[in-house]
């Protein structure tokens, strides 16, 4: 772009240095990253305890607070709001500051807003455990936690947008398109869902439709959008090449926004038939933008994948997220219809998107960002712990995904036949698949622990650097 040349040069003259940008990010991004990882650990431990109850019902029996019906939503909401969205904010702030070459606006304000976000998530999780869940998937936080959540989000998003507006690098890179779209998308879907489900309740099954629409948009646009933003930043960066085929990325971006919001209502039962039909078509159509975006990334890294994988921990995470995004899109499009309705198959999608596609991308990004912001190096202190974190996360997600998917297919086969005894085949018959899920959550907990330990080492080294002389 020749027209952009003069303004770019002007901007460069006033642009802050990388060190200044990173200094402004340090407090809010590290706080969000640390809290996100802590919630990841909490969430997968809750999910692990819940999954044990699926085949061992006497486990933690006799206490309403830890019954499956409360533990499971508590775990999923802790993972979505505590880990996924919170890490997404950390990544969004970092990407805006780095790609826009601008110091973060109001780092202290952002940190305080993030603190309130954490308080709201904590209150929400305890609210669910106490029995105040709203009953809508991915929106189970009671109103007294949901409203502060929205307020603190508004502060974070507003300061993020102000920072974006003040950027010195005017050209918006692909990652920032996704960040911007997701930042605007989330408040709309959250306010629609909270308003129509918790405040002015719409009648009958419209509630289920609105809840399903919210859940899909949260996963398909907001979380996958943030994951793609991370992929588009780190893949070119780690292979040290410019993005190949930006036109394909642009087409993929707009098509994903147009189609993505229509997916995943294909399994709602007692609703007008056009809704599952339209949504099923969208499930298939969304393959096009996802593949376009993934091809663009693939072309960027082509030929250097094996080499970069060996050298760079972050790239390994990105590759994992890349594969899982392709996998989850295809499996939903092919099998996500009537056959797998009312089974664990759809549960697996939530877990794969939150922990796999987004989770791997976010953990990989944090493996790069956290050392930059603490020790100023490019790698976390312990390479072994980074490897452990990667392999445990990847295997954990695959175990959870495969366990739930196969349990779902088995349930679906029983549901489609009249002869099979329900209790024998669909309930006790899935125990072995669900044990795999428990193992998967265990591995994810190990991954979160390894990352937190690495984080702690980096923070300690940072403190020693700053205050070491005084000792």
């Amino acid at each position, binding site marked *: 772009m020749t027209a952009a040349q003069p303004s770019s040069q002007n901007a460069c003259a006033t642009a802050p240095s990388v060190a200044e940008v990173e200094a402004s990010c340090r407090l809010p991004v590290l706080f969000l990253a640390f809290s996100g990882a802590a919630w990841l650990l909490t969430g997968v431990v809750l999910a692990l305890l819940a999954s044990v109850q699926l085949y061992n019902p006497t486990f933690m029996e006799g206490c309403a607070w830890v*019954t499956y019906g409360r533990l499971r939503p508590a775990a999923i909401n802790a993972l979505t709001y505590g880990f996924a969205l919170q890490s997404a904010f950390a990544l969004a702030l970092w990407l805006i500051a780095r790609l826009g070459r601008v110091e973060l606006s109001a780092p202290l304000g952002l940190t305080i807003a993030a603190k309130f976000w954490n308080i709201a998530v904590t209150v929400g999780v305890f609210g669910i455990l106490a029995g105040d869940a709203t009953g809508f998937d991915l929106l189970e936080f009671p109103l007294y936690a949901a409203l502060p959540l929205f307020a603190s989000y508004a502060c974070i998003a507003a300061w993020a947008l102000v920072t974006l507006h003040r950027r010195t690098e005017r050209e918006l890179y692909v990652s920032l398109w996704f960040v911007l779209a997701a930042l605007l998308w989330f408040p*709309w879907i959250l306010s629609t869902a909270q308003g129509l489900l918790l405040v002015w309740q719409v009648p009958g099954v419209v509630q289920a439709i609105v809840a399903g629409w919210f859940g899909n948009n949260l996963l398909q646009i907001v979380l996958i959008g943030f994951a793609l933003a991370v992929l588009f930043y780190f893949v070119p960066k780690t292979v040290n090449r410019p993005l190949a085929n930006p036109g394909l990325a642009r087409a993929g971006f707009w098509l994903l926004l147009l189609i993505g919001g229509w997916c995943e209502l294909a399994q709602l039962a007692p609703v007008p038939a056009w809704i599952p039909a339209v949504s099923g078509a969208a499930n298939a159509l969304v393959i096009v933008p996802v593949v376009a975006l993934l091809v663009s990334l693939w072309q960027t890294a082509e030929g250097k994948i094996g080499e970069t994988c060996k050298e760079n921990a972050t790239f390994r995470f990105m590759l994992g997220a890349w594969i899982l995004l392709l996998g989850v899109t295809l499996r939903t499009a092919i099998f996500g219809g009537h056959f797998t309705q009312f089974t664990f198959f759809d549960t697996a999608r939530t877990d794969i998107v939150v922990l796999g596609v987004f989770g791997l991308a976010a953990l990989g990004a944090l493996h790069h960002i956290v050392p930059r912001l603490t020790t100023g190096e490019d790698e976390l202190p312990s390479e072994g712990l980074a490897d452990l974190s990667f392999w445990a996360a990847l295997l954990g997600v695959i175990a959870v995904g495969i366990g739930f998917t196969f349990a779902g297919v088995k349930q679906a086969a029983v549901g489609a036949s009249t002869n099979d005894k329900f209790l024998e085949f669909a309930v006790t018959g899935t125990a072995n698949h669900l044990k795999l899920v428990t193992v998967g959550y265990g591995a994810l907990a190990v991954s979160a622990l390894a990352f937190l330990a690495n984080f702690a080492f980096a923070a300690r080294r940072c403190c020693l650097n700053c205050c070491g002389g005084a000792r």
Partner: protein
Amino acid sequence: MRYGPIIGAGALFSLACSWAALVMAPQLQLGDLSPAPIPNTPDFHPAARPGLAAQGAEVYRSLGCYQCHTRAVRQDQLLFGARLNGIGPKAINLEAAGSGKTNLVNLKLLIALAKARPDLGLAKVELPPTLAADTNAVAAFAQFTTHLTLLKHADHKAGIVRTNSATVNELAGKLPAEILAKVGPEEAERVVKLLSDSGAKAELVIYNLGPDIARGWGARRSVARDYLNDAPVLLGSVRVGPDLASIGTRAPEKFAAPWKFATSNTATELEHHLLVHLYNPRLLAPASTCPSASYLFDKVKPEVRYAGEPLVVAKESPPVFPKHNAHALVAYLLTQRNDVSLPEAPVPSVAKSATAKPAAPADTNAPSKP
């Protein structure tokens, strides 16, 4: 792309499209749905829940029962059939007048039945000598013979070979009879018209088909109207346990662990069964993975003026005392029914004579297409 506002506006436009289609449109379509009157009663479906059941809905939500149980019956197919309820006033008594016996035969109906069921034979009906003087009967028999010849001609032309082991005469002898079962609407309507034209009483019947209905989990598919009084609507998304849409009217043998009513007081027995299930599901179904809700029960008699009836859970263990929430949850479960016929989701009518089990043919007896 350099301008953030363009990306923002594009994103909001995309979101507005999906919002209009999947939030606004369903609300416009379903927003003014209202309870439907139940035919021949002053009641409406879905009925407003009584106070205790309304509290039970809150317990159901609070304990997260919807995490493992759906409340939606699925249906794969809606098929039709024709049922013969009476042979009609045009039947002729073949017995001698004054003998006290009746052997009513509707000759036109026999022809109609033979047309409807090409797989069945038609036994010959003779004009008894006692009726030789009855001019009406003679005319009817003459017509019958003509029709029979025409029918045989038509059969020959269509290549239909009728068996003689089963005849339409037997079919018309035991009423109500399922003449056609599980066929398309046109076929069933044609046969009902054919039978009605012969003076017989026939009705169109429907068949709700699908694994859920075959399992006894409901009489018809669940539709949007069933959830009008729910707030929040807890449809559930995974069937870790059985569907609960019709648990309040489910037959004991259709439970995941089948049981039997011991007395005629079925309402109390079902309530007791559900209370025991809440206390410990494995007392009723040893393989169940449903967590026990024993925290809804007091082990010792509570120190209140009215502690309620003790619940005997097992012969060897002492009785427990269900708390208010346990009774509320069971009251809520007992309101779950989907046996009410709705215009958009009809329930099959039951054959009038309760004792005569409809002689439903094995699977389908739709006539083979020529």
